[in-house]
């Protein structure tokens, strides 16, 4: 694997620095109710309307765990090719904050539900494995709103107690681009599994980013800083770039990097220290005495294993084998479960090669332009395969197909109907074409003579004229053949 080209290094004075990144991704578990209470988890509800007595930590209230969240975590663990721990323990992480009603977060510290696993990244220069350290279940906190009132902070506990999976990677990432690919892959796996919707705008997926730098070639890790709660891939990349450069500057300046928690300021595009939190950093973890150790049986795990759908890595392999896609094409098709479904629906009834090109080319471009997801595509998989079949059987040319496609984007219309209504059917009758061609040659006698005397470049001119006269409908292949004969 030639890494040279894509290596991400920071150069300062004679030195080259490598950036070492580890991510703690917080993924909201897709579930109806919260991890330890029966209140709803819907996004966007009125403040404090999805808060139970347990979530607001009323005296005497006790946590009772949601089975579905446990299953979701285990499924995600299977998707990360990870070890599932049959016994795990819930601990309390103690700290005070306005949106943490219990004064502690129930999390898993020493014994998480999922152990080591890996995520395979498809980089332009080959595959790369990123190690997963662990996955554990924990409660989300509420939300503090600082900008509604000059003197006060408002607290909304709707999120309080929502189940999160914290997925901790090993420090295996080396560039902002790898982080981009890693997050997308993780998101894709969870969406395939239906364990997290991966919606970053709604906060369903956030990450704490650990960044350190070291001189290229050294083994030892540098001192790391943790950038808290970054909620978009773009911000993660910006934060890493800023932070890595800040650390390199410090080192080049003869100073040392302090291990600390930092915040990414999206307005100023910089990270800054959260020193106020430093003294409260002793979380005093201990096993939650309100809960017992969580034990799951082999049967329980096997049952979940049997419910796991085909995941991106396996699907990719199958697409390459079955449909002869290139790895590049396969990657795109499996990147999102909806895309892969769309693709498979299209190729059920039409040519794979054409379908691949049309999806990756025209369709993605058009969706992109309209800012639509594949699930919102105006063109259904069925109609796209019809369009492809019209090209394949010569009913319309590729060029005409683009016109039809554009009309289909305006509303999911049957391409056959569009072709009929607008009379876009390709002219493939040799006799009709001959008549056309005779007419064109007649009208351009002088050029025909020039062609015959050796100016072969003029062939293109004749093709163009025939197409023009036919209104673009003439079958280009036939036109070529007949022209050659006639000239």
């Amino acid at each position: 694997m030639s890494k040279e080209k894509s290596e991400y290094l920071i150069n300062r004075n004679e030195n080259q620095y490598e950036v070492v990144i580890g991510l703690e991704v917080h993924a909201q578990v897709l579930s109806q109710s919260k991890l330890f209470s029966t209140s709803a988890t819907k996004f966007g509800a009125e403040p404090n309307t999805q808060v139970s007595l347990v979530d607001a930590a009323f005296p005497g209230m006790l946590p009772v765990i949601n089975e579905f969240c446990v299953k979701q975590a285990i499924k995600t663990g299977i998707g990360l090719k990870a070890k599932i721990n049959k016994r795990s323990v819930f601990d309390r992480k103690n700290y005070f904050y306005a949106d943490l009603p219990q004064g502690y977060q129930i999390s898993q510290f020493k014994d998480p539900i999922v152990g080591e696993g890996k995520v395979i990244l498809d980089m332009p220069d080959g595959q790369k494995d990123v190690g997963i350290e662990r996955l554990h279940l924990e409660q989300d906190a509420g939300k503090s709103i600082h900008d509604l009132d000059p003197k006060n902070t408002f607290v909304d506990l709707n999120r309080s107690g929502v189940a999160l999976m914290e997925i901790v990677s090993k420090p295996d990432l080396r560039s902002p681009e790898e982080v981009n690919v890693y997050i997308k892959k993780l998101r894709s796996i969870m969406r395939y599994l239906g364990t997290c919707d991966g919606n970053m705008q709604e906060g369903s997926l956030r990450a704490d980013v650990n960044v350190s730098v070291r001189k290229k070639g050294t083994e030892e890790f540098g001192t790391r800083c943790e950038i808290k709660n970054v909620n978009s891939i773009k911000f993660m990349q910006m934060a890493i770039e800023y932070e890595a450069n800040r650390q390199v500057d410090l080192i080049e300046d003869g100073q040392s990097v302090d291990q600390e928690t930092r915040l990414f300021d999206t307005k100023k595009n910089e990270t800054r220290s959260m020193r106020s939190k430093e003294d409260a950093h002793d979380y005093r973890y201990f096993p939650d005495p309100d809960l017992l150790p969580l034990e799951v049986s082999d049967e329980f795990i096997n049952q979940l294993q049997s419910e796991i759908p085909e995941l991106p890595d396996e699907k990719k392999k199958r697409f390459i084998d079955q449909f002869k896609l290139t790895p590049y094409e396969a990657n795109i098709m499996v990147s999102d479960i909806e895309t892969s479904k769309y693709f498979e629906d299209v190729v059920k009834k039409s040519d794979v090669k054409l379908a691949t090109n049309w999806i990756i080319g025209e369709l993605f471009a058009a969706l992109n332009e309209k800012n639509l997801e594949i699930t919102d595509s105006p063109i259904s998989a069925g109609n796209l395969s019809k369009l492809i079949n019209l090209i394949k059987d010569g009913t319309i040319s590729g060029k005409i197909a683009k016109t039809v496609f554009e009309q289909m984007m305006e509303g999911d219309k049957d391409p056959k109907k569009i072709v009929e209504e607008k009379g876009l059917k390709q002219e493939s009758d040799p006799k009709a074409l001959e008549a056309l061609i005779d007419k064109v040659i007649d009208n351009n006698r002088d050029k025909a003579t020039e062609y015959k005397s050796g100016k072969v470049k003029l062939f293109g001119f004749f093709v163009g004229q025939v197409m023009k006269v036919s209104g673009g409908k003439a079958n280009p292949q036939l036109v070529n053949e007949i022209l050659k004969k006639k000239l």
Partner: protein
Amino acid sequence: MSDITKQTLSELVNNIKEKKLSSLEVTKAFVDRSEKSKELNTYITEDFSNALENAKKFDDNPKLDLKLPGIPMAVKDLFCTANVRTTAGSKILNNFVPTYESTVTQNIWNEGAILIGKLNCDEFAMGSSNETSFFGNVQNPIDKNLVPGGSSGGSSSAVAAQLTPITIGTDTGGSIRQPASFTGTVGLKPTYGSCSRYGIVAFASSLDQAGPMAQNVQDCALLQEVISSYDQKDSTSIDFKRNQYSKELTKDIKGKKIGIPKEYRVDGMPKEIDDLWQKGIEYAKDCGAEIIDISLPHTNYALPTYYIVAPAEASSNLARYDGVKYGFRADGENLIDMYEKTRSEGFGAEVQRRIMIGTYVLSSGYYDAYYLKAQKVRKLIKNDFDEAYKKVDAILTPSTPSSAFKIGEKTNDPVSMYLNDIFTVPVNLAGLPGISIPAGHDSKGYPLGLQIIGKAFDEQNILNIAYAMEEKIDFKNKITDWWIK
């Protein structure tokens, strides 16, 4: 009937069932006596007028097949009661009115009982004399200026003074059994997981357990039958077959093997206590039990273990009292300032002390040396009992190392206060059931109790032993109503 408040629970239940007494008559009698007994300071919140109204309602539509038909009852103020203020004896919850009911109290109301008020207790159940309550000391009806024990001091005082026919307390390290012993009453701490903790203000989650406090063993068994239930709202509640404790109660304990642990003969234990224990052994023999010497070698380590485990859990359990969602809030310039002032003004000295101990033993660098160590010793203590129960059916010990002491006598010396629980704490650490029954008086005429410890889920057995011994002991409480003018 003039002596309504002198009747046992079982007598009252029968009289109501046979329509010799109405719920209103009974309720009024206990309300009246409570009104005359303010000097004992047993109540934090009285609910007398509602109680009388509810008694009338009960009489209008009596459900006589219930286990506690129209019986008035005051409960420890650690149980959340819907729409009735619940303080846990703390300033920080001074104005807190729950909208929900604890499972244990709900079970009681479901059997027809009527709430008459919330009883005083040590703040967050942290104390052995009821002196840490924000709502003031409770007088022991046995003698003026005598503590009623703690933390369920209001409960023990109210039962002994007959302000309520029966009550419930909570026991984390002895908080039911020690006050029962100090007031000449019966108190049962059930097996951990027998009574739901849902809706009980938490002190130390792995130790807390609610239990009945009564005038006699029969009443105690009946209330235990009512409050013990498997509850899906408490993850540590245990689904086991519960007996009909009062119906199955028997004095036939012939051949039961009762262990006498030599380690409970502690240094400096008053001779009176030792004598009481010996007398208890004789009573047990009289009942036909077989006495066997046993060893619980780690007994001495129970109290230090408890003073790591309980404060650690408490420091975390009490973090929710931060002035944000409910309860007392002090003004602060910013969030942290508000927290620090609220908790400093809202919690009393003992609670603060225990939060500090708990925070310290969990803090970075000390966890292994204290908290982990304590959990390991806790295992050893439990193993001791497991070993002993291979040989015996129950264990007999004194309930406390002394009789009740004077108010103020131990407030300046936390360790000597903690030593009160030396015989009760191991039972909580091992999660076992234990019952204290009154067994005699000391030279001052103050009551002394004996403790019978059982195997897990074996409440019926220790109730039976207590029932049999109770008859032989024939204890009479010496209460003069000195506080009624």
